[in-house]
């Protein structure tokens, strides 16, 4: 786009941004204005129109004006070593980011932005906390976004290389079947009921809604009615989690690009492109929540430095592969780490039996607390219902707790695989992490009084990436120390002695 500044390389945002913003504001007007209008209209239709319509029009006009001014006042440029952004309508700000500090360039296009062929570009240095770490461009043409991404992330990658140097994984529609197995399903189901009751309460209809439901299901008896309510909740949850998964992961692709960048592209309505420099990768984590694990599937997360998790995107940006059959997950994990055999060896070294005892005791203690509380309350209040609940809780809770404890013990393991240290633990959320051995920046060993008695120890490798620390839980003390010394030579080594 030729502007007066163009000889110095200054560029402007795309003019279509105004339209996208107007659509956004219009959406807000409808979402906020409709309930308000309906509320006022119940007393006076005239006042509803007189207040809501002009307010909406004013908001739209303001959006057009403000966005025009903002676009005129915003410019950015990419120089040989910096990215600069000048913005601000009243207070002018100039932000300058060194190009070799840039870690990610993410492109996001929500529906209102996407239809106009533009994208939001977020250039991030991954230096958490400080606002100076990122530059956000809302919005530029899609081609311009792609160009910026390629230019900023390609560090001296030779010209003439193919644009895509390897597709590591693609979306498999069959994997949608794993979506309802997530914890999201019951949460969405319960959330839906909660939302209905909440909305009903705003309009003072809560009693009415409950009465209507009771009337509707009254003929089925208590058990039948409960079954219908639960089934409906599950159905809502399944539909909701499916929809969310499809929105998030549709058309998913994981590529390795020249210049050493992993790129995830995905999304049905909102399209996202997330880049991750391999240089920042310290390993991968294979995550298997209980439901997904029983179905033989696993998810692959990146363990990388400077990845802010959460943030504006609900799905963690670190996920490299959504729930997929375990074999596929292993293949992708190996491909990401450039390991031939896969970072997770089939047989990890198991941990001593004493670790099982600890888990069983924790599980029984966890099951005992609610049971004992119910029993004590039942005894105090001489309530038969509470006592019944207590024995039912014990009968159900103890076997479940024991099964989880034994499973957690069987899942414990550690090992070395090429350049990676592998540690696995967990039952409800089984996690197998493969951590680059040279990415370990410190070692901790931890022993509780009980662990010491049984000769157990928890060894933790600290790293600049991911959650910052990954542990080998309840390993035999001597065995764990020897393993840590082998995995990361030179740290514990000089401090070890034979007693």
């Amino acid at each position, binding site marked *: 786009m030729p502007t007066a500044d163009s000889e110095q390389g200054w560029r402007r945002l795309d003019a279509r941004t105004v339209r996208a913003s107007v659509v956004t504001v219009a959406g807000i007007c409808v979402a906020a204005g409709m309930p308000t209008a309906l509320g006022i209209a119940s007393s006076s239709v005239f006042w509803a129109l007189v207040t809501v319509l002009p307010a909406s029009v004013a908001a739209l006009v303001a959006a057009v004006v403000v966005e025009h001014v903002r676009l005129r006042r915003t410019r950015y440029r990419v120089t040989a070593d910096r990215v600069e952004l000048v913005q601000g309508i009243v207070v002018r700000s100039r932000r300058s980011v060194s190009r070799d500090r840039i870690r990610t360039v993410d492109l996001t296009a929500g529906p209102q932005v996407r239809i106009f062929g533009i994208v939001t570009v977020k250039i991030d240095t991954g230096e958490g906390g400080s606002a100076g770490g990122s530059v956000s461009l809302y919005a530029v043409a899609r081609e311009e976004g792609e160009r910026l991404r390629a230019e900023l992330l390609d560090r001296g990658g030779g010209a003439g290389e193919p644009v895509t140097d390897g597709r590591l994984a693609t979306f498999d529609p069959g994997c949608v079947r794993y979506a309802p197995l997530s914890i999201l399903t019951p949460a969405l189901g319960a959330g839906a009921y909660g939302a209905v009751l909440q909305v009903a309460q705003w309009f003072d209809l809560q009693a009415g809604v409950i009465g209507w439901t009771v009337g509707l299901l009254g003929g089925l008896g208590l058990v039948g009615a409960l079954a219908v309510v639960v089934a409906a909740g599950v159905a809502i949850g399944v539909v909701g989690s499916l929809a969310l998964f499809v929105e998030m992961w549709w058309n998913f692709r994981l590529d390795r690009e020249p210049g050493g960048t992993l790129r995830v592209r995905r999304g049905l309505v909102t399209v996202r492109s997330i880049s991750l420099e391999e240089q920042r990768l310290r390993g991968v984590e294979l995550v298997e929540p209980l439901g997904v694990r029983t179905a033989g599937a696993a998810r692959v997360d990146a363990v990388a*430095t400077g990845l802010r998790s959460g943030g504006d995107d609900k799905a963690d940006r670190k996920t490299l592969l959504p729930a997929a059959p375990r074999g596929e997950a292993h293949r992708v994990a190996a491909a990401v780490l450039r390991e031939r055999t896969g970072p997770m060896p089939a047989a990890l070294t198991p941990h001593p039996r004493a670790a099982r005892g600890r888990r069983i005791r924790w599980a029984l203690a966890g099951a005992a607390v609610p049971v004992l509380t119910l029993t004590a309350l039942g005894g105090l209040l001489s309530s038969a219902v509470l006592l019944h609940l207590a024995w039912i809780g014990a009968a159900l809770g103890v076997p479940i707790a024991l099964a989880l404890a034994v499973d957690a013990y069987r899942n414990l393991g550690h090992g070395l695989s090429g350049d990676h240290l592998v540690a696995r633990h967990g039952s409800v959320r089984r996690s197998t992490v493969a951590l680059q051995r040279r990415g370990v*920046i*410190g*070692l*901790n*060993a*931890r*022993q*509780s*009084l009980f662990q*010491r008695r049984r000769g157990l120890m928890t060894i*933790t490798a*600290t*790293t*600049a990436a991911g*959650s*910052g*620390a990954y542990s080998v839980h309840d390993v035999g*003390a*001597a065995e764990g*120390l*020897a393993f840590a010394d082998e995995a990361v030579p*030179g*740290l*514990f080594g*000089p*401090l*070890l*002695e*034979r*007693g």
Partner: protein
Amino acid sequence: MGNSGSEPGYGEPGDSEPGDSGQGGSGPRDSGPGQLRLRPPVHRVHRTAVTWWRARILLAGAAAVAVPAVTALLLPDVVRPWLVVPAVGLAVVTVVAAVGMPPWWYRVHRWEVTGDAVYTRTGALWQEWRVAPMSRIQTVDSDRGPLEQFFGLATVTVTTASARGALRIPGLDHALAAELVHELTETTQATPGDAT
């Protein structure tokens, strides 16, 4: 003790207690030969730290006891037992902790600067050994709360690029702490690497 790498002149060298625990008992010294373990770091913290820890427990305990005790004075007799009993319980716990914990912590807390790493042992019920190599150290700070200032002590914190990798050495003589911070800063600056 093979502490060849550590600088002389840092006070409080531990008496050559080889056990890795302060729990009494036979200790791992008697366990079979060849059992691998971490040797304790060389230096103890300053002896005044025992008094500092004790004062801290007593102050925190006094504050915790004061709440139910004062409330009990203001409220009618009927509810008093419900407040006095917890207050007495808290007081007993405080006194027991103030008597027992500081010597235990003193036995466990040790630190050492080897040639290329900082090594600490902390805790009591949960003992923790931490090692951070010089090349990965990002910052070295010392800080002194009001109580520490009163006792002439300081806490040195060594951080790495890991969000969870910080080493803390509490209860050092404040002059020694300043010297340690200075030395570690110089050493880490001289060590190449981007610390990640």
